[in-house]
């Protein structure tokens, strides 16, 4: 027996080593139709596990705990699921609303906020237990409640979000989670459809659907209020139909320029970050949906709304030209860069595939099967403001 012990100990430690898994290069891929999440390894290009029964994931998004162990999946049907990426299992799951659109994790990693369409507002939960911490209904006017979009985290333990129907931006300060302080910015423009936070946490920008331009909030100067920028752009041009709302999540900022999708025009706007005026426009293949900078910001990748959603275009930031048009397959819905940008993963819904590209050569590296994938989220997001 005594002789056996060290042997047993050795056996156990071998097992333990075999089971160890780091999570810094993992990611979650959403399978829209089946309501599944795949855990993937971005270094090895491998599918590790499939987590099932997450509900309606038609507009799902994911944030990560700061230890990168847990992924929080926000489903369209109000589902909020906490996935343990070490155990390949659901840790907790709740249905917190009837219809929701996305979420965010607080600066300190302790709070998860979800933005809801019905009932409109945000709800804030403990990231540990998923117990409700605060409920902030988006009431405006008499008996009116707005859909909430563009929810992001901001420095100072705050969340910022936009009210689609009300045309307002709200900021909720959660330094005291039991009594959040809410600051409202009314009249920011018609129908903000999504918003983003600059990676330095300095600016919050909401895109407007109901009128030309964007709403800009400078978080270093809240007293200045929300500034309406690019108000004149496209005001006299015919607006083309928009078959899918653009997403502003991937703030593409490169040097002095910010890249954003135009709405109702097949163009990417290049905005000068010093003056907030239009520097240039780049004609592209369709209505842009995601306009995302490679982490080093040398390239900007763009995908498109139906019916041009079989393509991806790459803008060379050096001279603001299109350097290549790729055709990954039918219905390109999302893209995600590896943390330092040497590769990008592309979700091709109708071909049931994930395509990995080398961003330097723009050549395909590999394809992985996934059933109707519509979102790719890498755990490196855990340490990024506004994601």
């Amino acid at each position: 027996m005594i002789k056996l012990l060290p042997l047993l100990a050795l056996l156990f430690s071998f097992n333990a080593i075999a089971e160890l898994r780091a999570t810094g290069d993992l990611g979650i891929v959403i399978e829209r139709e089946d309501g599944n999440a795949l855990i993937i390894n971005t270094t090895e290009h491998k599918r590790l596990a499939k987590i099932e029964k997450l509900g309606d994931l038609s507009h799902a998004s994911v944030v990560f705990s700061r230890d990168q162990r847990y992924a929080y999946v926000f489903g369209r049907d109000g589902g909020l699921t906490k996935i343990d990426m070490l155990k390949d299992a659901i840790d907790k799951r709740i249905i917190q609303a009837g219809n929701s659109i996305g979420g965010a994790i607080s600066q300190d990693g302790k709070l998860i906020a979800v933005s809801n369409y019905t009932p409109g507002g945000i709800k804030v939960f403990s990231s540990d237990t998923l117990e409700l911490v605060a409920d902030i209904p988006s009431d405006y006017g008499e008996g009116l409640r707005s859909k909430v979009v563009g929810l992001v985290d901001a420095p100072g333990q705050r969340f910022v979000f936009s009210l689609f129907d009300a045309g307002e931006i709200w900021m909720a300060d959660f330094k005291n989670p039991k009594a959040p302080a809410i600051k409202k910015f009314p009249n920011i423009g018609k129908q903000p459809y999504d918003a983003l936070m600059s990676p330095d946490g300095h600016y919050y920008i909401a895109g407007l659907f109901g009128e030309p331009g964007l709403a800009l909030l400078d978080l270093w100067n809240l007293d200045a209020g929300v500034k309406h920028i690019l108000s004149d752009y496209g005001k006299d041009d015919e607006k083309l139909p928009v078959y899918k709302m653009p997403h502003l999540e991937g703030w593409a900022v490169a040097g002095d320029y910010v890249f954003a999708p135009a709405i109702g025009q097949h163009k990417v706007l290049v905005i000068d970050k010093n003056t907030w005026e239009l520097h240039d426009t780049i004609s592209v293949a369709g209505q842009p949906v995601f306009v995302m900078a490679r982490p080093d910001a040398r390239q900007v990748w763009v995908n498109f709304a139906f019916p041009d959603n079989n393509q991806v275009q790459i803008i060379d930031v050096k001279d603001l030209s299109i350097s290549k048009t790729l055709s990954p397959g039918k219905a390109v819905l999302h893209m995600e860069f590896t943390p330092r940008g040497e590769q990008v993963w592309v979700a091709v819904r109708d071909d049931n595939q994930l395509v990995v590209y080398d961003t330097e050569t723009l050549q395909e590296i590999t394809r992985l099967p996934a059933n109707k994938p519509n979102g790719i989220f890498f755990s490196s997001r855990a340490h990024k403001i506004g994601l």
Partner: protein
Amino acid sequence: MLVITAVLAKTSLAGEPSPERQSALRNMLNHDCGACHGLTLKGGLGPALLPEALAGKPDDFLISTILNGREGTAMPPWQPFMNRNEAAWLVEILRKSETKP
């Protein structure tokens, strides 16, 4: 333009769309319409398109909403991608809530 002709060529102008067109339309309903109305059509940026929600609204009204979109709202016109017949078939599907393939 090529896409449009191809789409039109596949559908006869009267009666039900061909089986292959039906499955393309269902896919469109789930995914492209679903982007705004939700995969299960319970609503999102656009309203729910479930039978209860559409009850009392005339076919013609819904068909022309689909084909022409609605000015001043996020509902775009789908005329370039389907004919009236196909829009009518979609309304029928929505009323029966036969949204799953």
